[in-house]
């Protein structure tokens, strides 16, 4: 395909779009997987929410 005398500007525009959007999507996917892994690790260690834990703490303190 002949892009004419301004081919470099067209290619540079599309290249910039591909680089920035690929980088953005890669960051979103990586960060999502990272937080999911952290949450799974915490849950595997038996970490619970504060509301449940405070009840547990009270019952521990009473005994």
């Amino acid at each position, binding site marked *: *395909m*002949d*892009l*004419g005398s*301004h*081919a470099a*500007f*067209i290619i*540079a*525009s*599309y290249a*910039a*779009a591909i680089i*920035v*959007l690929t980088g*953005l*999507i890669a960051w*979103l*996917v990586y*960060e*999502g997987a990272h*937080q*999911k892994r*952290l*949450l799974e690790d*915490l*849950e595997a260690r038996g*970490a*619970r*929410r*504060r509301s449940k*834990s*405070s009840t*547990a*703490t009270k019952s*521990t*303190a009473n005994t």
Partner: protein
Amino acid sequence: MQTQSITQKLANPTRFMALSGAILPWLSATAAVIIAYAMYRGWNAPPDYQQGETILIMYIHVPFAWLAMMGYALVAFSSFGLLVFRHPLADVSAKAAAPIGAAFTFLALVTGSLWGKPMWGTYWVWDARLTSVLMLFFLYLGLIALRSSIEEETLASKLTAVLALVGVALLPFIKISVEGLSIPWLGLEIPAWNTLHQPSTGMGSTIHISQRIPLLLSAFGFSLAFFAMHMKAMRTEILRRRVKALRIAEVDRARAREAVAAAE
């Protein structure tokens, strides 16, 4: 009433995670297919009689510029939802939209600059449209920087939301900068600023149908892609907040155990 119940349903992060988890793959795939089809149609359309093949830049520049402004409107709308209605997901939405909006604003500036050089003879002019979009980009960066500079997350959310609402005044400025504004019954007449930038290309414009259809498809496809990315970023932010809550709970429990042990 129906709208209220949908808002209430979505206010629950657990329900949002389930719903968005089901929608996200379909939304992403639809966006990718529509963008691919729009590019196929655009790259096979005849060259413009004035601009030649550089019209190809229009198929990405116009959607990026539209999403730069739509992204900021989403940040401002979400900030309003946080400050006025205290919607649990409003701050998640505002935080998730800022970096995506910044990326699209950056791309609008870069592609516009690369389109400007062959068409206007310059990469940049300090006119109203280009300068106001550059200010929008700095505003996005300001929102991200302000939020990350305050450790207390509730305070950071509120201050960022206030800045986002103050900055919303920029949106009509960007629009009026090229087209002016005329509201006769109010006696309001704002002339367009002196600019190289042409009025927006959209639904009512006079471009040929062979170029208008790929442009509208591209704008629609990139809009869906924006919402898919925003949804993904919101999901990640909800997970991050859960991780933080569990860590704080762990630390609290450990302290309580230490206190009990010390008392014994």
